[in-house]
């Protein structure tokens, strides 16, 4: 029972880790992409549709990653190419992505696919206490690896330094000869791929079917996670597991016949998000940890 619960918590946190890590890189480069929800939904529907029609999970996952990336490219075109307001463009992307995914997915409602297999042999998961950590699929392990790689990239490589620099001051980066827009394009596309993968995880693993708007706010929670992590990759994992646990609490509550109305348990992740944001901002540090050129459009003079 406890093992099953922990397993669900871990699996719930996987899409949050993936989406938040992608967004962290985007924000570190100085761009705020509020369209996470839209990109995740596009990833989810493409992954499900392609898995269902081709029968191959690999094709489905790839489709999720690519469509997340393409959705992010729309965002990049407006925000980077045309210097539109990042907040409003992100909202537009969410509205657009929610609509288009619903349209594409309307033929796939009620259909089912088999999810990803568990990576390790089943006997591993019977090991007492730590067995549950061997009962996950490849994407779950990959997500932790990605966080690690992103950390190495951001803080141990020159390219990571350049990316952080363009988020701190794009004019300085530009004066030193770095191509701020190129850097931000790369970050935005990476963020889209991560969001697409996160989205793909939902219909392929978490709930093996597609339903309209199935992210139900996970994109927004991932955005809050980036703030919670104060733009440090490793902290995303704790945050995501914490949110995973809160989200799962309603299932546990129902299973044990708690008398608390389910609506209250369902609203816990959202209330927890607010609580976390308040906690972070009351420490006063969020403002100084955030990349200082976040949401400021860059226009180079010729």
């Amino acid at each position, binding site marked *: 029972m406890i093992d099953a619960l922990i397993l669900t918590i871990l699996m719930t946190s996987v899409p949050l880790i993936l989406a938040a890590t992608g967004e962290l890189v985007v924000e570190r480069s100085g761009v705020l992409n509020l369209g996470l929800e839209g990109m995740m939904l596009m990833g989810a529907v493409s992954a499900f549709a392609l898995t269902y029609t081709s029968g191959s999970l690999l094709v489905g996952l790839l489709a999720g990653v690519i469509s997340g990336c393409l959705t992010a490219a729309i965002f990049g075109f407006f925000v980077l190419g045309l210097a539109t307001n990042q907040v409003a463009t992100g909202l537009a992307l969410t509205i657009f992505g929610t609509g288009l995914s619903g349209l594409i997915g309307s033929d796939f409602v009620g259909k089912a696919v088999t999810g990803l297999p568990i990576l390790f042999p089943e006997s591993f998961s019977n090991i007492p206490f730590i067995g549950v950590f061997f009962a996950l699929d490849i994407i779950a392990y990959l997500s932790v690896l990605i966080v690690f790689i992103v950390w190495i990239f951001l803080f141990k490589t020159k390219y990571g*330094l350049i990316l952080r*620099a363009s988020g701190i001051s794009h*004019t300085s980066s530009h*004066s*030193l*000869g770095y191509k701020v827009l190129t850097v931000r394009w790369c970050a935005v596309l990476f963020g889209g791929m991560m969001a697409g993968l996160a989205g793909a995880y939902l219909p392929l693993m978490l709930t093996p079917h597609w339903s309209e708007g199935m992210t139900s706010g996970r994109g927004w929670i991932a955005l809050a996670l980036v703030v919670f992590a104060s733009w440090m990759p490793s902290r995303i994992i704790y945050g995501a597991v914490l949110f995973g646990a809160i989200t799962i609490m309603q299932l546990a509550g129902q299973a044990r016949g708690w008398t608390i109305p389910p609506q209250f348990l369902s609203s816990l992740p959202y209330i927890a998000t607010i609580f976390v944001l308040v906690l972070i901002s009351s420490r006063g540090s969020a403002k100084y940890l955030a990349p200082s050129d976040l949401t400021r459009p860059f226009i180079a003079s010729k």
Partner: protein
Amino acid sequence: MNENKVSSNRNNQIKIKVCMIKKPLLLESRNITKSFGSFIANDQINFDIFEGEIHGLLGENGAGKSTFVKMVYGLLEPSEGAFFWNSKKISIKGPQEARNIGIGMVFQHFTLFPTLTVIENIQLALSEKISSPELRETIIKKSAEFGITVDPDIYVRDLSVGEQQRVEVLRCLLQNPKLLIMDEPTSVLTPQESEQLFRVLKKLSKTGCSILFISHKLREVKELTQRATILRRGCVIDTVASSEVSTEQLAKMMVGSDPQNVKPKSVVNSDDYLVRISGLNRPADNPFAAPLEDISLSVKAGQIIGVAGIAGNGQSELMEALTGEWRSTATVDVFNAFGTDIRNYSAHERRQLGIGFLPEERHGHSAVTNMKLTENTLLTHHNNPVIQKFAIVQNETLENLTDEIVHNFDVRTPFQNPLASSLSGGNLQKFVVGREIIKKPRVFFVAQPTWGVDIGATKFIRNALIDLANNGCGIIVISQDLEELFELSDEICVLFRGKLSESMPLKELDSEKIGMLMGGEFSPHFQRGQ
């Protein structure tokens, strides 16, 4: 080059010429032209720099100096013309390429990243890959060589402005440049720090590195450079041997006419203080701010008090305390105006009492650039009953008042009531100064009244301030520009790390003494005359 300076007889001129022709050319600018739309920022720029030469580029704000050096550094692309490097035609595609051929640049507005460490900042400016420990070694070695000390692991935001500039210089030096461009480097330095910088630059030029030194300060150009090229409105006026011309001649070439002087300030007769401040403390409210400690400041009718100091020592915090944008009764002992305790008065209430104020930043503080001039007038005139009746803005009277300001203060506008952004820096500053003066304030607090403003507007604004004081207004001027403070003030005090020195009459001061004070050579309450 030193032998040129020793003697000053007529023959020397020939000697200089001969000496310079012998030196090989490093950089030549041939007919360099840059236009932005219909505006020509640089028109047929021709001059050259020898190897090992310190060359001055002199001109007013807006003369096109920065545009030119940005082209040398590859940040802008010339519309016409070409650069020659060691007599070979080159086209510089970007800063990285500029660095690779040996051009380094120290920007006027630093290109540092406050939340990165010194070593990370330096890494960003190096084209070749170099490991952190190795780089740390090199930094320490190089900084010892030139007498510039910086801690490589400190965050740049924790450095003073002068120290930040040292990081900028150091990171250019690490690339062993053949040409170092310095864009207005001394505007953020104390006179002593400037001297130190000049020593570094002279040492550098002895090693064979050429330096292009950009400034609008005549004395510096004469002191440091061998030759100087004067720019005016985007054109080269002349290239001269610096030691052969007087500062007056340089000034005339730079401005195009004899610069008029600021009118004399009359002697203060009054003995009653209009404003008295003592025991003003303000804790820092963020990691980038300077705390204010035990500040005392008073001004009499007709008096101008100058507050000198380098940016970042608490000027903006002090200004906010003066305007009422920040206020506290708990940490301020006395803040009286005309006998009233105004510690808790908002900006609005202070204005009602007859206090005018003007913060340093034109863009988004004292003016909103994407609003029209009328709306910018409304910014500080909204509590005037003629302008606002029952919360409804009276547009006609507002337009008339705006026209009056534009007319009286010689504000040149492209058409009636444009957006503030379409005015040049000088005209916008004349507008905001006029907007405050037209209210005939009894006390006026002003920060950096002529920052980034052309000479004509500068003189106009300084004269307007002196007129205001001569009519009995008490004025506090916070400025980094010592020349400005010497022209305007009756007394000067110095702000350093949030502490304010006692104010001293102008005649007891010279720039050396002020420089010492700006570098922190005072205890907060030192004895006058020590």
